[in-house]
Every structure is written in structure tokens, then in C-alpha cells.
């Protein structure tokens, strides 16, 4: 039994138009995606804007309606009504720490909100629990009476984490958790996410466009393009042996932190781009979408047309 299994997931958003505003087409935000996650590991979901990575995360926590397909959490179907209680095992951390916390609420109320939804505690118990959570994420227990604007960006993201771990979840969906933060604050939050992962045996679905950070954080990686998977595998598979031209181009585009490699990078990028332009039709179908994934090793899957595999 997989910890989390996403099976042929489709999330389509209708496009309305015409005289009567009927559904005339659909944006296939997620188009037939399957993957599995292991417990206690970090799974990175990578893609550019519009690739559908955030939609998958939101579909798992139930914020987006699933058009087709199934999501199993510890073998249980998330869509089934009798499994509603497992929703509290899955929590989300949002991208923007400035807008994801209600500015009119005190930290106590923000962090206690999920607790109030699922557990009935006395005021005193609740306060004690929130104080413990605050200390857990490295903020002082007195801070619970403050408002979000009194905290820095990194601290706000910690409050978001405190809210997410309040119900002792097993899986956390982290949607671009550090993109809005400064470099040094980024480091703080990433370290801290690794710490609580070990302490609480958490599993992360880490959604990001930043391959540098994904490489640092993740064990497994899935690369998405226009709602489909183009490649998935272990970190080493993706970074040392990328197979799909899109993955190669994405990796080549990462700025190199060593200025001595500047010319090498420039040429490499140009070569990859040339290859991308030449072999585009080998890797994408007539609509410009990726093919189905094929195994090329036990851990490594690439979206290739059938003939390419043999």
C-alpha cells in the first residue's frame, strides 16, 4: 500500500462562452496524472506557471474539484464520504505568508482554527496547545496574542506551519513555501521544515518552480508541463540523467552560482535550446502535450512516444 497514490487524476476547469454562457471548452489544468509518494519522504512537484502543479496540491487537500481519477491516502479513497476524517491528516502551507493569514485575527485564533474544527477543547487546553505549537515552530509562546502584521515574513511562514501541524497531520502540501521570502529567510524556513519533518515523521509534497531548492529538499521529483507529467524519478535520476528534452531545458536554465562557468553555461543552454527546437516533435504530440510516462528504470519514468522506448 502506498502512502499517497494519485491515479489518473484529471482536473478540468470549464471555459464558458457563447450567447448563453455554456461550457464550450475546458482548461485541462491536470490531465491524467499518476504518481505515488513514500511516507516520511519529500516529493517535489516542479513546473512552470500554468503547469498544473498547484492544482494537484489543491486537489489533494480538497480545494479543487476532481474531474476524474482517484486519490488514495494510506489506501483509502479521499473522495469517499466515509473517509472525511482523513482530511485532517493532510494540511497545506501556502505561498504568500503575507496574504494567507487573516490580518484581523490574533495568532491564537489563526493557529487554533483547525483545532476548533476537529476537536473540542476547553479554552485553557486550546491555549496550552497553541503555545506548545508556537514553541514547536520556534516562536515565543507569548506571541499568540499578536497580530500577523507584527511578524516578519519568515515568522509568518512559521505561523502558517504551526497552523498546518496543529492536527498532527501526516502529509503536508507545501505550495511554493519560500518563493516570497528573502534568501536568508528562505534558508531558515527550509531548515526548519527539515527539522519538523524528522521530529514529526512528516511527508511533504513540495511544490516549487525553483529547481535549486527542489534539489536541496526532495527525494523524489515529478516534472510537469501543461497539465501532464514529462518525467519523474529519484533526485539523482532527474538531475544527473535527465531524459526528456523539457527537463534538460529546465535544468539548463538554472542560473549557475559559479561565475567561472558563465561561458560554459551559455553555450550549454544554447545547445539544449537547439536540441529542444529540433526534437520538439519527438517529445510532444500534435497538440504540444507530453506523451504517457514509460519506465526506463525501476525508479525513472519519462514521457516518450511508444516507438522511442525500444
Amino acid at each position: 500500500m502506498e502512502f499517497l497514490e494519485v491515479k489518473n487524476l484529471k482536473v478540468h476547469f470549464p471555459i464558458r462562452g457563447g450567447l448563453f454562457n455554456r461550457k464550450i471548452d475546458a482548461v485541462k489544468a491536470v490531465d491524467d496524472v499518476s504518481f505515488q509518494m513514500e511516507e516520511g519522504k519529500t516529493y517535489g512537484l516542479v513546473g512552470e506557471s500554468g503547469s498544473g502543479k498547484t492544482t494537484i496540491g489543491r486537489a489533494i487537500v480538497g480545494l479543487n474539484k476532481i474531474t476524474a481519477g482517484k486519490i488514495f491516502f494510506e489506501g483509502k479513497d479521499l473522495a469517499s464520504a466515509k473517509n472525511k476524517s482523513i482530511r485532517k491528516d493532510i494540511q497545506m502551507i501556502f505561498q504568500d505568508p503575507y496574504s494567507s493569514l487573516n490580518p484581523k485575527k490574533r495568532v491564537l485564533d489563526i493557529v487554533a482554527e483547525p483545532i476548533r474544527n476537529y476537536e473540542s477543547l476547553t479554552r485553557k487546553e486550546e491555549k496550552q496547545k497553541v503555545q506548545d505549537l508556537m514553541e514547536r515552530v520556534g516562536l515565543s509562546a507569548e506571541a499568540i496574542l499578536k497580530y500577523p502584521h507584527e511578524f516578519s515574513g519568515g515568522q509568518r511562514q512559521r505561523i502558517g506551519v504551526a497552523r498546518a501541524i496543529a492536527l498532527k497531520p501526516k502529509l503536508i502540501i507545501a505550495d511554493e513555501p519560500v518563493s516570497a521570502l528573502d534568501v536568508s529567510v528562505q534558508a531558515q524556513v527550509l531548515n526548519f521544515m527539515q527539522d519538523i519533518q524528522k521530529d514529526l515523521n512528516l511527508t511533504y509534497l513540495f511544490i516549487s518552480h525553483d529547481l535549486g531548492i527542489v534539489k536541496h529538499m526532495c527525494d523524489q521529483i515529478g516534472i510537469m508541463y501543461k497539465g501532464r507529467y514529462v518525467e519523474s524519478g529519484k533526485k539523482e535520476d532527474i538531475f544527473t540523467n535527465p531524459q526528456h528534452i523539457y527537463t534538460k531545458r529546465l535544468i539548463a536554465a538554472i542560473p549557475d552560482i559559479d561565475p567561472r562557468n558563465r561561458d560554459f553555461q551559455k553555450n550549454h543552454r544554447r545547445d539544449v535550446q537547439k536540441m529542444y527546437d529540433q526534437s520538439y516533435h519527438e517529445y510532444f504530440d500534435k497538440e504540444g502535450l507530453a506523451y504517457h510516462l514509460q519506465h526506463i528504470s525501476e525508479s525513472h519514468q519519462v514521457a516518450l512516444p511508444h516507438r522511442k522506448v525500444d
Partner: protein
Amino acid sequence: MWKFIVRRLFITAPQIVLLSVLVFLMAQMMPGDALSGLIDPNIDPQAIEQQREKLGLNNPWYVQYKDWVVSALQGDLGQSFRFKMPVTDLVEQRLINTFWLSLATLIITYLIAIPLGITSGRFNDTLRDQIITGYTYIGFATPLFIFALVMLWLFGFHFQWFPTSGSVAPGSEAGSLSYVISKLHHLLLPAISMALITTVNTVQYLRSEIIDTKQKDFIITARAKGASESRVYNRHILRNSLLPIAAFFGYEITGLIGGTVFVEFIYSYPGMGLLFMDSILQRDYSVVTSVVLLFGIASILGALLSDIILSLIDPRIRIK
């Protein structure tokens, strides 16, 4: 864009139908009916009942509604029992008067709102802005009917600069120059009174739009191009701030309807508003129904107009 307008019209039609049903049912629920105010209480009840039957007043409501709609579409809104004339004829003259009063009010409203709003938004938090904002707060706080009374007393009775009632001097010949001038003279004071109060909304709206637009990134882009301050205002800030104001134009009409009822009543200006008040007081119920219906239709058309204006001037909607 055409698709948008046609679709918008599709929404408007049922709105008007629904409105007419509501108005009709409301009229039905009022105590008394078309006959009750008209007849001598000494007449034999049998005869009244016969009359009822003949006029169709005993039919189920939907049949009566159908009759009412059919005749309304033919231009027959019934008889006014007070004026003893067809409602259509009665309303026609009043409608024209109210139209001119509303138009004058709208023009004065924008003549006040645009310069004040621009000054206040451009020089926000200066003395000029504080004075203008102060005026708008007073405007918000002052009830229109009291203000109109004060204006009437001051400029009508005390200074006697303006006539105190009517829409035109008696005896002037329609179409002559003196007739037009007299009409203008009559509607100026009510229009100014109303505009001075209703304009404060638009002033505040424009002010906050300008302050908002001022801080947009594309204004910095315009400055970085080397655009002078006046060009930044004229080409970039004003155009973008006036857009919602223009779009609000249609809704402004709805607001005017409420205003005209008070103002016409106070200035005894023979328009729709005065007619409305009079006929309510007289329980001239076929007139009330028609006036409410016309006011309702005007509001719906105002909203339609706003949406169409917005679709014409905003490219983000225009494309779809």
C-alpha cells in the same frame, strides 16, 4: 463585444418581466381597487359587482396581469381617476419634465465632481483636499429634502432669484425662446440643489480612484519614460480613473430617481416624482403602478447602460 451586449440584453428582458409582475402583484395587494375610489357608496352593491365583472376585476390575477400587459404594450396604462385622463397622456408630459430635470442635474453633478475629484485626488492630504473632503462629508450627512427646502427658502423666497414652483411660467408659448428660458429658469434651482448633494458620491469615488491609480506600477513606467507630470495625469491617471466613473453613469440614473421624488415635491415641479407623491396620497392607484413600473424600468436600463459603456471602453472586457 456584440456577443456581450446581446447576452446582457437577454438578462435584461426577464428582469423587466419580473419587475412588472412584482409591481402588478403589489398593486393588487393594496387595499381597494380601481373602482373603490370612483363610486358613490350609495350605489347598489349588486351593480358594483356587475361593474367588477365587466372590468375583469374578478378574474384570477394572471389573467388580469395579461390584460394589463397587453394594454400597456399598446400604450394604455389605464385611467387616472384623479385627473380623469389616460395615464399615458398624464405621464408623457411629466416624463419630459423629469427628463430635463435629470439631465440638468447630471450635467451639474459632473461639472462639480470632475474638477473637485481630480483636485482632491491629485493633491491628496493637502489643504485643498481637506476642504473638498470636508464638503463631501457635509454632503453625505445632509438629507436632500432639508437641503432642498433651505435652498428654496433662500434663493426662491428670500432673494427671489428663482421661481418657487412649476416647470414653466404660465402663459408662455411653447417653442418660443422665452419659453425655453423660463423652463431653464425653473429647473435650475432644483437641479443645483440635487446635484450639490448627490455629487459628493462621485467626488469621493473619483478621488479614491485617482489616489489608487497614482500608486500603480504603470504610472512609474510612464514617469520613467520621461513623461511630464501633466502628461502622466492627463494620459495615464485620468483616463484610467475616469473609466469606472463613466461606467457608473448608468447607475447614477437610478440614484436620480430617488432624488427627483423629494426635489420635485419640494419645488412643486410637475415631474414624475411629484406625480408619484400626489397619486400615492390620492390613492390614484393606476398612476402609482405605472410610475413605479417606469422608475423600475429606468433603473434596469441604467444598469444595462453602465455595463454597455464599460464593455465599450475597457479593452479587458471588450475582447471577450
